[in-house]
């Protein structure tokens, strides 16, 4: 059994990191994770409970596959809790594939950094157990190393998502601004159009009126343009 723990501080408030955590996948840093699907989700006493199926491509070395069997896609079960009042989010993940030989239990927790509400503390723990196959301690090392490097990429991914969220907000703001400008231009154009038409009609009317007064017997040349 191998136990790995780690801590990291994000320079973003907890609310931002929690939103990013839900939108973490897909990301270019962890291409191995190919899907996260909600199996169950509910709010109980103000706390959000979610059960997700995580699908990933592990790309295990062939010697490992020879020992525990091949698998194209590995599945894991992730159970999470978000408590917005106490401000914590925890995610516990356990592998489904290779469950007979391998147990990888991961625990991730996001909380505001004590003393600094503008920062978020991430605590991470993984317990790796490989049993019942030869070379099991090598495999434990291999998996622990993979988890360590993925954890690093995962932090970059959270930053990447936050950056993306910021860009989306700016884009929405810009789109709203250009939509407003466009609307103004259109309105100005339409008003301009109406004014011109109205002026032409007025001209037409006065010409007609003039014709009427100057020669009352002449047929009325009502060249009133259609609006």
């Amino acid at each position, binding site marked *: 059994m191998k136990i790995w723990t780690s801590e990291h501080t994000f320079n973003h408030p907890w*609310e931002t990191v*929690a*939103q990013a955590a*839900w*939108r973490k996948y897909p990301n270019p840093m962890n291409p191995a994770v190919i*899907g996260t*699907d*909600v*199996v*169950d*989700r*509910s*709010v109980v006493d*103000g706390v*959000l409970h979610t*059960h997700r*199926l995580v*699908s990933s491509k592990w790309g295990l070395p062939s010697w490992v596959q020879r020992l525990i069997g091949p698998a194209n896609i590995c*599945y*894991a*079960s992730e159970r999470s809790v*978000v408590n*917005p009042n106490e401000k914590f989010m925890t995610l516990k993940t*356990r*592998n*489904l594939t290779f*469950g*007979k*030989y391998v*147990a990888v239990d991961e625990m991730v927790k996001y909380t505001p950094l004590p003393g600094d509400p503008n920062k978020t503390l991430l605590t991470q723990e993984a317990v790796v*157990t490989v*049993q*019942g*196959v*030869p070379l099991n301690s090598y495999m434990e090392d291999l998996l622990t190393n993979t988890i360590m490097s993925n954890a690093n990429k995962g932090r970059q991914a959270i930053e990447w998502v936050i950056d993306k969220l910021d860009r989306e907000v700016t884009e929405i703001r810009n789109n709203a601004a250009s939509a407003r400008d466009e609307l103004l231009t259109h309105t100005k154009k339409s008003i301009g159009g109406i004014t011109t038409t109205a002026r032409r009609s007025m001209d037409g009317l006065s010409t007609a009126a003039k014709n009427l007064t100057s020669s009352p017997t002449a047929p009325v040349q009502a060249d009133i343009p259609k609006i």
Partner: protein
Amino acid sequence: MEACGQLKEDYDACFNVWFSQKFLKGDNNDSMCAQLLKVYKQCVEKSMKDHHIDLKDADIEILGTEKEAKVPEK
């Protein structure tokens, strides 16, 4: 699940708005995306059955019990 891609996208878009605009602001009513979640979940369930994935497997302790695989005898 690949088969549920569009349903997931629709639901996720709704959830992300609900999570940031409602839930984190103290509104616990989750009816906003309930219908989208329902159809998406049904698709995931079916897809899991097709791929023989059983989530109950994660709740069963195998290692350290009798069910654990044993090293083959030499």
